[in-house]
């Protein structure tokens, strides 16, 4: 994002419904670079601000597969290749006995990649973020709802955008310094 003086213009709403409406109207108004903030997940909001792709499931799938494979191959290599020992007359490659660890490894890797994947894709951790510069934004984790149009938006203009957002009947409007 190129550095302009401002990061964007933020409008505060006091209900999920009004945020949702505002989001839709902003999109219709042709803004593409915008984001919405809410104290709890709101179904459809992401789509409303034009966010569709979600890579998390793929990451988890890959992680799980790697885990499972690692688990089984490790056991096979240890018990049948590197140091094969006769244990209670069982075959070196006792696949039924290897299932449990394989399964656990699948879950472990899958789970870890779900978490790390989500954080990474969300760009977290990010303790500093311009939106925090807005004092009222503290209520975004309580009972207020925010919509922001980034200054990087092609249609962005300090005056126009501000006026447009005001037309959405927000509780307050604030410029977000970068």
């Amino acid at each position, binding site marked *: 994002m190129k550095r302009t003086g401002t990061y964007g213009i933020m409008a505060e709403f006091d209900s999920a419904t009004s945020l949702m409406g505002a989001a839709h109207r902003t999109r219709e108004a042709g803004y593409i670079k915008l984001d919405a903030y809410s104290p709890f997940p709101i179904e459809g909001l992401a789509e409303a601000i034009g966010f569709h792709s979600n890579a998390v499931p793929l990451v988890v799938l890959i992680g799980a597969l790697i885990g499972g494979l690692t688990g089984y191959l490790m056991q096979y290599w240890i018990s049948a290749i590197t140091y094969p*020992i*006769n*244990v*209670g*007359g*069982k*075959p070196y490659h*006792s696949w039924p006995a290897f299932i449990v660890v394989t399964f656990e490894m699948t879950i472990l890797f899958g789970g870890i990649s779900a978490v790390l994947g989500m954080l990474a894709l969300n760009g977290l951790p990010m303790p500093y973020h311009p939106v925090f510069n807005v004092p009222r934004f503290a209520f975004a984790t309580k009972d207020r709802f925010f919509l922001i149009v980034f200054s990087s938006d092609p249609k962005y203009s300090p005056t126009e955008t501000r006026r447009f957002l005001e037309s959405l009947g927000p509780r307050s409007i604030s410029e977000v310094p970068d």
Partner: protein
Amino acid sequence: MKMEEQNGKSRREDVCPSKKDKLDAALDLETARARIAATKGPEYWRSLEELAGSAEFQEMVHREFPKGASEWVDSVSRRGFLKLMGASMALAGMTACTKQPLEPIVPYVRQPEEVVPGRPLFFATAFTLSGYASPILVESHLYRPTKIEGNDRHPASLGGTDIFAQASILGLYDPDRSQTITYLGDVRTWGMFQEAIRGPLSVQKGLQGGGIRILTPTISSPTLADQLSSLLKIYPQAKWHVYEPINRDNVYEGAKMAFGQPLEARYDFEKADVIVSLDADFLYAGFPGSTRYIRDFAKRRNPDSGNMSRLYVVESTMSSTGAKADHRLPLRAVDVETLVRVLPVVEMMNSNPPGLNGEQQVFAADIWRDLQGHHASSAVIAGDHQPAVVHALAHELNQALGNVGKTVFYTDPIDANPVNQAESLKDLVADMRGGKVDILIILGGNPAYDAPVDFGFADALKNTNIPLRVHLGLYQNETAELCQWHINEAHYLEAWGDARAYDGTVSIIQPLIAPLYNGKSAYELIALLAGQVDASGHDLVQSYWKKQHSGADFDVFWRKSLHDGWIEGTTFAPKQVALKTAGLSPHPATNANALEINFRRDPTVHDGQFSNNGWLQELPKPMTKLTWDNPVLIGPAMAARMGLKTEDVVELELNGNKVTAPVWIQAGHPDNSVTVFLGYGRRRAGRAGTGAGFDMYPLRSSATPWFAGGLKITKVGGTYKLASTQGYQTMDTPNGATRPLVRETTLEEYRKEPNFAKEEEPPKELTLYKPYPYEKEPYAWGMAIDLNACVGCNNCIVACQSENNIPVVGKEQVVIGRHMHWLRVDAYYQGDRDNPKAYFQPVPCMQCENAPCEVVCPVGATVHSTEGLNDMTYNRCVGTRYCSNNCPYKVRRFNFLLFQDWETPQYKMMRNPDVTVRSRGVMEKCTYCVQRISEHRIDSEREDRKIQDGELQTACQQSCPANAIIFGNINDPNSRVSKLKAGARNYSLLADLNTRPRTTYLAEIRNPNPELKG
């Protein structure tokens, strides 16, 4: 010292299983002796600071498996010490540091050419008990004796040993042994002692030794006997008294009655078809010749040989001999005489003879009928504790049955001085009280503890002021306490000597190691009295035999005798003896319904001389499986009548003398009679023996040394915890089912249905995966245990303990069930509790091919070797104990606490260098003596050959007098073990679990009299 040690010694390389040695500091005898010198018995336990400073401790902290091991029995010091050790162990763990400390390595200065470091030498010598010699071979690593084996070439051993001989190695290294000469408790030197007695002796010269009294235990040593007699020539008025609590007075008196002279009977059970034991426990260690008798008896118990012998046992308490009987009659000791007397006439009788009930009479009749049918091929044997007259009657019977010369032989007693020992001691006490004694020399023994109560020997020793009382002994015991002078005796493995085996054959006793505490032998002490100052044991023995075998070839003769372990031509020839047919006056009968008490030597500590031997203390008694104690045995019927339970405490009163002790309900014990065991309740035995059990000698008087009537028994309330290694002694589970653990049937049935023992074993094909191809390996080790041959003598347990550095854990640990024996002998009682059938089943690790223990070990510490061994890698074990849970045979043992002794230098010297010493928190188990297997494999490979069948023996097999344990290569169809496993009797324990054990059993077959309707 290493040099002088081998002087005149000769080794037995030819029978030596090669051994590997790790040369370490503890091997340096000098160092060890220095360490020992620095540490006194009681205050041996050093303080933490001191120890922490010591090099060993540092070593321990860094080392996962420190050197050194031993048993531990003194609970108090153990607690202190364990904390410390535990700390070091834990520390070792925290750092998880496997870095090795610098380890010194100490070469000889001049290496004896016969020594190859890493290969043990074997020397022939003999262990003596009450004068009777057990010929043995001693394994020696760089002149440290470490293991006792039987002398396979000696007729009295044939390779077998008994528990006392096996355990004597621990006796040698016992840190509680008396370590110095003392005068009134103060340390003295041999020189000072010589000074001290010179004066008194010269005085005695004038009196012709009228004031000299010498008290010895039974002596069979020709040399010592010769020395004594020549001493008596110097001092004609001196007297030589003999006393041992477990003596053969009855035997000799009986012989006098029958033949007018003291004789010993020897039996050939290999030729006997019918054996009648009159209260004789002839299949248990301590009975003269038992080792050989067991071998002969076992030979005739093979049902497949076609001429299986039959054993009748009449006995006054449950014994292992009784357990092997085809017909057993529990009978009070006093009634045995009646039974013998009526034998010849019993069939004509129409009323019960006094003392016998109908059943017993029928039993007698059956015995008689069977004996009649086996003229000249039967044997009647009377127990040492039966009165003289019973022995005489037995002689009469054998004569009448024409057994003499066939199965029974009479020889001179091996006792050099076969006096009536009770009388002998009585005279001595009389003299002591009469002030006739100026010098009293006590050569070993412990009369102050074990003399008959009515003699008041201890009191006499204390209160009649005999000017010079000298005690020679291995321990500072109750008797030493009452003598001014105590001379620390040299252990038989430290000193020269000789002794006669039960058949008279003389063995030279050669030392395996220089005396650890510069002890003196009886030979040297007597020599000193006879004026031969500083005569060495070696010279004394050798010079005596020079006299016997004069001639140029003496050196050859001498070396040969030492090498073979016996002296040619010293065996007693059987004597032709005439029976005095004078009527035998009956033994003074006690009133028939008076409560009887039987005094027996303890099965493991004998008369008390082995009290401080941890191995024997913790060795389960054959019938009760008890350790560390000697409760009063009573029969179930009597217990029910008196409302007594096992572990209830009772008071025994016999003519005024009282003893309190717990009771143990013994199935098969005769009614209206109790059995007590001597040898416990020692006051001054050492950290193992002191305070263990209850002293029964106070009830034992010279008139009734073996059994007495008129016992009063009262329940005093309270209970006493007894430590049995086998909680549950029958195969019948409480829900009324029976488990087929020992498979047994009669000879008749067996002939009809030979395969009765084969349980439905799951077929080998019944598997989802391909079984491991053991048949492709050069060796597949297996073991067969013949339940018919096994007489439950426990010898294998001690042999295993000695071979594998197995610790002793102490009573309180046994109580919780933490004993460590790798090999146990289960005893089961089946049927009528008043006269049950009893079975023995030795249980080592089964080495299952489908081992349940291995599959569950998370770290692979126990896995299978290609030869089918269930390997146990101690240093990999983390101690989850899962394997033990999953072992259906429960043969695994766990080091719950630090059971090993890392410190005591003596024990470091005793250790078998070929077996890892296990640490705390590690599982351990039988490995078929894998150390022996590898040694033989390596030797055979070096010689480019295969291991021959029989060349490789496990420790348990090697010392088994009955040959009940056969080990070998099951891939070789001609090996003994393969043949046995192919036989009909072969079965595996818990076969239905499909563990496919390599150890299998040969079912037990009894041979009851088919006519007998009892």
